[in-house]
């Protein structure tokens, strides 16, 4: 019985994750503080030299401890709400970046003369896997305390950041060689 419940739960989570990524949310394409840059917009925040991962800052222990020391439940609740909004924005942005990487990779693959099918399949599986994970994380963050899924979010965020950085480097490399 409990096995059936777990299977149904996983199916439910995967369904919503896939749904989320099939229909990109408005916040992913146009956030409150401006649209996320595409690979073409390598200026400003998104160039490889200036890129800084914000994972440690968003869910830092020192901030949580500081708020707890204020001993005010309303403040703690506000802190959780605020951090939840930032984490969701952060995960949304990463999911948007993965979509951009996938689109750009498809574009490059179409133009390539010799394609390694195994390597292509691995890249797509990795991107699909990460997209699915971010979908599940978005659901977890929506319903639970954002610090609960911190380790998981930071781990997968680091992987997505690496992919993004490598995409930026590839992009700047191809721009330089033009």
């Amino acid at each position, binding site marked *: 019985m409990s096995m059936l419940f777990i299977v149904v739960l996983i199916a439910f989570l995967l369904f919503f994750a896939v749904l989320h990524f099939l229909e990109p949310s408005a916040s992913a394409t146009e956030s409150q503080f401006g649209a996320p840059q595409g690979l073409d917009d390598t200026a*400003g*925040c998104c160039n490889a030299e200036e890129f*800084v991962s*914000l994972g440690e800052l968003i869910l830092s222990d020192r*901030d949580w401890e500081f708020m707890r020391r204020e001993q005010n439940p309303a*403040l703690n609740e506000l802190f959780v709400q605020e951090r939840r909004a930032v984490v969701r924005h952060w995960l949304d*942005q990463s999911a948007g970046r993965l979509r951009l990487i996938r689109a750009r990779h498809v574009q490059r693959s179409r133009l390539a003369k010799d394609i390694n099918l195994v390597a292509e399949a691995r890249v797509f599986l990795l991107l699909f896997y990460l997209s699915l994970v971010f979908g599940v994380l978005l659901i977890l963050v929506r319903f639970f305390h954002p610090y609960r899924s911190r380790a998981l979010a930071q781990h997968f965020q680091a992987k997505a950041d690496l992919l993004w950085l490598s995409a930026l480097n590839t992009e700047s490399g191809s721009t330089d060689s033009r």
Partner: protein
Amino acid sequence: MNAVGNVGKIAGTSAESAYEDLWRRTLSRIPGDLNRLIYLASTRDYNSGRYHHAGLEAHFGFEAVHQALERAHREVFSKITHSSLKDVVSGLEQYISNCGESPEDVMRSWRRLQPYRVAIPINSDPIAAHLLMSNLKLGLEVLERRRARAQDRP
């Protein structure tokens, strides 16, 4: 060297000199990074996004001063974004006590109007901007609760 190369080199050197001058004469005298951030944002034209400083422009030219102010703005923004919530609260306290208005008025207008939203540099990371805005909002709430608690004490 061609003329274009010369212009590029001179412009770069002037921008660097303008940046050093800006720090030496102005920014180093402003207490706290939040004060500096607000000051630097105030030198930016809302419509064009260009930075202006009459005194510096007389010496270094428009483009060099724009570059210097933009660089300083990005650096100060990045520094505040990477500081802890505790430091943001201290920065807010310092800003409110230095701005020359009554702390109650400043707190009220900052909580309602959120003027700090215009202090974000162009091309900054949207997540970094969101985090800083969120920390400033939290910081204001922390200060407000502390103030209310202090008033409740006999």
